[in-house]
């Protein structure tokens, strides 16, 4: 899923300083699962904003809403009923959701309430870690199911570099060396011979480097 974290309240207060009527819009998708922008976070953030504004002596009317998803047109539609009564929409969805709201609601600014961080997993309760950089050309079959683009700090294809020590990355002793993980996994699988092969230079055009990406399934189009 997409992992995000709430922006600092000070930053949000500065963003909404000019407004006294806003929508705080959560999303029931990824940001709910990673506790960054679901209904609970909408409630907590809205209360905090009201309190802060009260302390500033400035009124703030907030409409709290949590949509099924913000990355699908149909789930945004219900917001049309009341959107025009508000001066701004503070979205707690991921960056895609925030932008999609901004595309569909043209009359007021749409503001980010979270920082979108990465595609990751819930490693344990309250701990999320990155797994995928969506490069568009998966090579996990060659690397024991561990992504060097994501898990190696330098995205090396033929690591580990000289900075791998005791299984950790040179940049931070808390970070596992991605290539050590790949090495151990392939060893476990009896596939170490895979590491003898030089992985070729990557075609990054399937990644963001090829420009904004689009996928079309003609058979699904209406």
């Amino acid at each position: 899923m997409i992992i995000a974290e709430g922006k600092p309240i000070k930053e949000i207060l500065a963003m909404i300083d000019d407004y006294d009527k806003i929508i705080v819009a959560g999303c029931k998708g990824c940001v709910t699962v990673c506790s960054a922008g679901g209904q609970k976070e909408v409630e907590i953030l809205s209360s905090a904003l009201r309190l802060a504004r009260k302390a500033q002596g400035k009124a703030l009317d907030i409409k709290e809403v949590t949509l099924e998803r913000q990355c699908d047109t149909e789930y945004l539609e219900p917001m049309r009923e009341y959107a025009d009564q508000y001066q701004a929409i503070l979205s707690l969805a991921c960056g895609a959701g925030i932008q999609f709201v901004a595309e569909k609601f043209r009359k007021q600014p749409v503001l980010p309430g979270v920082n979108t961080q990465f595609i990751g997993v819930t490693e344990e309760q309250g701990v999320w870690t990155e797994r995928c950089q969506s490069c568009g050309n998966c090579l996990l079959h060659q690397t024991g199911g561990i992504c060097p683009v994501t898990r190696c700090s330098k995205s090396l294809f033929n690591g580990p570099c000289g900075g791998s020590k005791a299984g950790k990355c040179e940049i931070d002793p808390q970070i596992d060396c991605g290539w050590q993980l790949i090495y151990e996994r392939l060893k476990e699988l009896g596939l170490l011979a895979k590491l003898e092969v030089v992985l070729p230079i990557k075609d990054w055009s399937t990644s963001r480097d090829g420009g904004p990406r689009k996928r079309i399934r003609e058979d699904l189009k209406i």
Partner: protein
Amino acid sequence: MKAGSNLEKILTSGKFAVTGELGPPKGADVSVIERKANLLKGNVDAVNVTDNQTAIVRMSSIAVGAILQRMGIEATMQMVCRDRNRIAMQSDIFGAYALGLRNILCLSGDHQKFGNQPTAKNVFDLDSIQLIQTVKLMRDEHKVLGGDEIEGAPAMFIGAAENPFADPFEYRVIRLAKKVAAGVDFIQTQCIYDMAKFERFMQMARDRGLHEKIHILAGVTPLKSVGMARYMKEKVAGMDVPEEIIARMKSAGKEKAREEGLNICVEQIQRLRQIEGVHGIHLMAIEWEDAVHGIVERAGLLPRPQV
């Protein structure tokens, strides 16, 4: 001859090579380069010019390399994958060759986190092994990546680094073999203090016949103090400094520490020369260039051969 550089001639003629290292200034002051270069001149066969090492902004390795060539000192330009994509790298290799550079050392590069630009975006479009392949493609097939023919091939003697002390240890020789398969001509290793471990590494390299395919230059760095020895052991990624070395530096005391560091370095060189498959040393006297002449002389490696 692939490039015809002095370093290549020394190595292919079977002579024991000595290379040095020069860190460019953190600015545009040429006098810093000239001062360091003059201390290295005549004592080494080629001088590595580091490429923004530890991710600290310094003068370009190619510019400094060209200055050294003008001074009559052969340079080995280091090129890291951190800062440039394949377009800039290939372009810079053309430019470097045109300026007279004939040796290149292909490196991944220290992560920008360590330097003075920790908020930079890194590139790593290629990795060091892929960079070796790229330089070889340009030199031997007269093509850039993608297959376009080039006008004038940059005949570079291709080097790479290897750290025998990084983990996983058993994998380091496999990685060395990958560099050989990619087309590397010579290897310079990380500074060696743990001689026994390096000997095990070289045994593994010999078992694969790698020592006959490429030239391995063993890295040495003289220690200035017990503090430096401890720092290397604890803080520098992938560095092993045995307790025995630390104890020797400690018992030398503050006043004799540098002398002991030089003694250790000379002993190390003598031991490294005995290892089958070691064709030279890479002497990295970090901010201690004036020690180079004495070390090389005491190790019996002067005068440097003219080839």
